[in-house]
């Protein structure tokens, strides 16, 4: 599963895209599962109060189903200008 990271999520994880091994991503059924998984591995992601998620370039909620071939993007608000 390919996860594109933007803004502070990229800074926290340290790279983008993040490629999850098939064995790990197989258990992730929904966007919510993925968020929980990522927060477990990168606890600072858990401190973000506002985080948009897109699946295949479309904004979705936590209950959206995801699969191995989907491209996920984590999009936090950005502040600068």
């Amino acid at each position, binding site marked *: 599963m390919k996860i*594109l990271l933007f803004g*502070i999520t990229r800074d926290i994880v340290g790279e983008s895209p993040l490629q999850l091994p098939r064995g790990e991503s197989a258990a992730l059924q929904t966007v919510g599962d993925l968020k929980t998984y990522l927060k477990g591995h990168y606890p600072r992601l858990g401190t973000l*109060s506002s985080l*948009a998620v897109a699946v295949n370039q479309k904004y979705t909620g936590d209950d959206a189903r995801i699969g191995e071939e989907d491209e996920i993007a984590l*999009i936090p*608000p950005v*502040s*600068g*200008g």
Partner: protein
Amino acid sequence: MKSSRYTRQTRLEGFGPQSQERLSRARVLVVGAGGLGIPVATYLNAMGIGTLGLVDGDQVEWSNLHRQPAYGPEQVGKSKIAVLSGVLQDQNPDTQIRLYDTFLHPTNALRILEGYDLVVDATDNLQTRYLIDDACLVREIPWVYGALHGFEGQVSVFNYRGGPTYRCLFPEMPAIGEIPDCDTLGTLGVLPAIIGSLQALEAVKALCDLPGVLSGHLMLYQALEQQMQKIAFDRNPTREGLAPLETSSIPGCTRADGTCSVAEYQQQRYVPGTVLLDVREASEFKAKSATGAVNIPLLDLEENLHSLKDAGAIYVICKSGPRSRQAYTIIRETLPGTPVYWIEGGMRQYLAVCQDQSWEV
């Protein structure tokens, strides 16, 4: 006006004289006269916008010059909008320019926005973005969003013909300090020019009814990879006109709620236990500060606030107000029993008043 001024534009298929005419009647408010605001205002002005409002209470600083090329060393310390409007009038004397030498607040936003066809967000902080989103919803004005993070940028058009708003993407404003700003992260000089130019383009598309307005799509730009992505999103059906702005966006920045004048601080400064807390960056503090002020930069405030737990009263100051307003909120939550105020107008106002009144700085 020279009749040939806009011929290259009116000749363009898909734009033409009708769009030029629309542009000449359009009224746009640009909030922020910095890295994003300069390209936005410069191009809208050059292309023949009718009325251009500029909102910014800031002055030019040396650290602005690498990304704000309307300003040079001679203008350091001067009002940004005053300098910028002079440049713009030289470039196109036909534009009606309106200046608002202030920051956008919940108390002034609806009044300033009134009568504009479109707002461009060229600010550098989330509080003002949420305020623009709320105020534009109330006033039923579309707005063009642009923001930066390191080598990345975001662009979208919100509240356009019933389309989604910023809060449809990010419903709740993040806590202060959660998302770093350009003061913390730094930014490459040309990056705001790229994002600001995209904003100017979207403004023209929306105003002239051109196709492809970036409504319902968030564009993500990655400068190092030279990649653009568009994320589609819908309006949240529960998003609608809301409570008074005073309670919806920036907490605690109304006059009745925490502000104080320079004179009020001067009356209290020698009372034992009074602390003047300067929340600017260390470099700003070192350059010029008030006598006896304690420096804790805003981003370090929460973890260092315990050092002020015995203060009798805390007066917060920054450069011009926004950061002390944020600090005020943090202190109220962290030290609920301590009286706290923030000094309106910041060091800019403080130094001017102290000099005027011959008070100790």
